[in-house]
């Protein structure tokens, strides 16, 4: 079965290369039937990869430990759910999953457009196949999940070896958010190849209007959404499983997922300017190329080990191939863009500083600066090693110092942007529009200062949140009122229809609203508290308004691990609020890895977060307690973001008539 999987991968590579050549040949010879053959080859390639994936799942479920991927990532007692997750528990299998998703996307895109844009589609297909072939080559020749497990025997020869049991799935991955986090993240990285492919095809065929943007709008949005979900899930996992009390550490692998998301956000905004005013055409081209490259870069950082991180897979020699491919893509795309620059001239120019275009431009500027800063900070160790010889790493203060002000600027623009009109805003309309938002922002500011809040960023952030909130409320309220008057609908109906008939705009506003919630949640970080104590039965730890009393201790076993669990009672104002049971688990893997399970009592106001660090020599229990304000709003805001994005993604049949 493993050999069958290997064969299917190789066959898929042949098919994708055929598809690429046939598509290009068909386009240049104007032979539609060659292009159709190429399309079928692309579908067949996806099918072949699906067979390979099926083979890997079979190998895992059948406990075939002659295959190195199975031996390294699975074990006999692993529950079936986790055996399947073992596909992406290790480097090789995760590459296969990546390739599978890529091929599925290619097939979908081609199928969707099988009767449209026949001049561009052959080139779209070719670019998609180049991308797929690159990753297939990596998967086949450098990180093949079907490799046999080899061992050096006593007589010095290298021979196949079948162990009695596998090493098991990394216990840190045995948690629901972590299981779905890599697949969702991969979808978020991979999806940007679609707008990229259409952009390249548009450049080649000189069709440089909005077509390439419009056809790929839903793909871009969906990819952006999935990437965002992947990032949030990673944060949630870090918070609940890693046990250090936070959810974002500016780790290189975390950063590498953030960068394409920032670029993607900039891109989603700047294409609006092109559609409305015919400006920023070259910029959109450059941005889509960089968004795609950052997605590749993200997986490059994770897999090449070039920057050390707790996340990274062990160092491998994939690095130079990634660099080669990214360089090729970058140079090729830039050459194309420069060659076609006469088609990308702006139709109009910036008329006023106080205009919607200007707000979008600032939005892009700020997001790009953030992306650049994250890139710089992440790659600094590598650069300093090249240039100076010593590796210098950069920590959270660097990233926070730059990104907190940027976040606040973005928040400000979120409120101000919709208040500006396209082209120019009259001072009269500005005064009217700014009035209530500024009033509420000032009130919030004064209220906070009066209440004793002295943290500068917190005051600014929450005041801006109030500002943006009021602008959003006004947008929805005014819009609904106008609609209900002109069409005689009731106010609630008008509100619903307004949103459904202007999904892009009002779905976007819902996403902006979610950002307010998330930013408010983030301000809590400045006030995190922590205390660690060694307790015996009956003793208590005090943190904030809570008293945490040690009530008991349990031990036990599951098929997978042994556990030790402390029973704690959390009191507030003398009343029992919650019984918390933080755990420590020791897994039955070859290296006896242990994990902590955090006990969490989450309210909108704050999180009480308790970790069992271990038993001490004198039979006391070491408990670390954190009090993290407002974390709830980060997760809640993320859920609202998903809803908002879904609204913008809704298909047209939800909007009846004009």
């Amino acid at each position, binding site marked *: 079965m493993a050999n069958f999987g290997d064969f299917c991968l190789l066959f898929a590579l042949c098919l994708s290369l055929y598809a690429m050549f046939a598509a290009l040949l068909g386009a240049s010879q104007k032979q539609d039937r060659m292009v159709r053959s190429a399309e079928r080859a692309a579908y067949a390639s996806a099918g072949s990869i699906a067979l390979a994936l099926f083979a890997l799942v079979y190998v895992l479920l059948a406990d075939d430990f002659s295959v*190195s991927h199975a031996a390294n990532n699975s074990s006999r007692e692993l529950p079936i759910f986790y055996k399947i997750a073992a596909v992406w528990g290790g480097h090789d299998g995760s590459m296969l999953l990546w390739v599978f998703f890529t091929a599925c996307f290619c097939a979908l895109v081609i199928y969707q457009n099988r009767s449209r844009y026949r001049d561009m589609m052959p080139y779209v297909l070719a670019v998609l196949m180049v991308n797929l072939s690159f990753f297939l080559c990596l998967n086949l020749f450098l990180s093949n999940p079907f490799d046999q497990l080899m061992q050096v025997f*006593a007589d010095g020869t290298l021979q196949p*070896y079948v162990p009695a049991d596998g090493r098991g799935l990394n216990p840190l991955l045995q948690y629901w958010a972590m299981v779905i986090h890599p697949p969702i993240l991969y979808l978020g990285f991979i999806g940007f190849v679609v707008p990229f492919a259409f952009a390249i095809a548009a450049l080649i065929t000189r069709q440089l209007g909005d077509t390439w943007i419009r056809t790929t709008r839903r793909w871009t949005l969906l990819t952006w959404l999935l990437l965002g979900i992947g990032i949030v899930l990673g944060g949630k996992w870090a918070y609940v499983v890693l046990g250090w009390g936070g959810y974002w550490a500016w780790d290189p692998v975390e950063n590498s997922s953030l960068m394409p998301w920032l670029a993607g956000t900039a891109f989603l905004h700047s294409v609006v300017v092109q559609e409305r005013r015919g400006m920023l055409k070259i910029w959109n081209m450059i941005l889509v190329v960089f968004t795609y490259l950052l997605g590749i870069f993200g997986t490059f950082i994770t897999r090449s080990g070039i920057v050390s991180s707790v996340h990274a897979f062990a160092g491998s020699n994939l690095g130079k191939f990634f660099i080669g491919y990214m360089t090729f893509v970058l140079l090729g795309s830039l050459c194309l863009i420069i060659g076609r620059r006469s088609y990308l001239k702006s139709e109009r120019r910036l*008329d006023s500083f106080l205009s919607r275009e200007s707000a979008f431009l600032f939005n892009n500027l700020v997001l790009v600066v953030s992306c650049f800063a994250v890139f710089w900070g992440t790659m600094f160790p590598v650069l300093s090693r090249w240039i100076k010889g010593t*590796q*210098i790493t*950069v*920590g959270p203060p660097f990233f*926070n110092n730059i990104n907190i002000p940027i976040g606040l600027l973005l928040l400000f623009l979120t409120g101000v942007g919709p208040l500006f009109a396209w082209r120019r805003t009259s001072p009269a309309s500005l005064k009217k529009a700014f009035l209530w938002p500024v009033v509420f922002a000032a009130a919030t500011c004064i209220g906070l200062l009066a209440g004793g809040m002295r943290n500068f960023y917190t005051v600014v952030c929450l005041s801006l949140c109030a500002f943006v909130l009021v602008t959003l409320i006004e947008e929805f309220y005014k819009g609904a009122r106008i609609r209900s008057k002109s069409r005689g609908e009731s106010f609630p109906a008008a509100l619903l229809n307004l949103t459904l008939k202007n999904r892009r705009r009002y779905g976007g506003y819902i996403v902006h609203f979610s950002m307010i919630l998330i930013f408010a949640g983030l301000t809590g970080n400045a006030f995190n508290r922590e205390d660690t104590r060694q307790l015996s039965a009956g003793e208590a730890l005090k943190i904030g308004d809570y008293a945490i009393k040690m009530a008991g201790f349990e031990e036990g076993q599951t098929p997978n691990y042994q556990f030790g669990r402390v029973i704690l009672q959390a009191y507030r104002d003398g009343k029992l609020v919650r019984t918390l049971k933080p755990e420590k688990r020791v897994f039955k893997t070859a290296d*006896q890895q242990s994990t902590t399970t955090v006990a969490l009592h989450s309210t909108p106001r704050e999180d009480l977060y308790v970790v069992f660090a271990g038993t001490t020599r004198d039979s006391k229990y070491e408990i670390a307690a954190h009090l993290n304000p407002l974390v709830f709003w980060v997760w809640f805001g993320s859920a609202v973001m998903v809803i908002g994005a879904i609204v913008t993604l809704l298909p047209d049949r939800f909007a009846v008539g004009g």
Partner: protein
Amino acid sequence: MVTRMKFIVGGLVVVAALAWLGFVGFQESKAYYITINEFRTMQGDLEGKTIKIAGEVVNGSIDRGKPKMEFTLGDQKESIRVRYVGKDVIPDTFKDGAKALVEGDVAPDGVFQARHIEAKCASKYEAEFEKKSSSQQ
């Protein structure tokens, strides 16, 4: 034209401010990532600097008995004694043979005092079987 200039100037001001903030953050948090060997040879130069060292936890060297936990960090050739003075809970992955990354500075008594410890499971994603068997020869 004027509008464009306004935008460019505004943009430059914002970028400059952020660059300055970034520089300050950089100075605050920069750490030199060196090997154990370099740590020994550069002793004098390292005063006052934040340092990161990577290595493996030497088997049996973890001593939690003292007020501050100590252990020996080693690579193929050399090793140093490390004292943990940080506040965070020690990660679960920190045990004999684990790959560890310590960040801290040199204490007055010459011992490396770590404020942060990161630990990774030894060769988690490599064919550990290969290593096991070669050590059996």
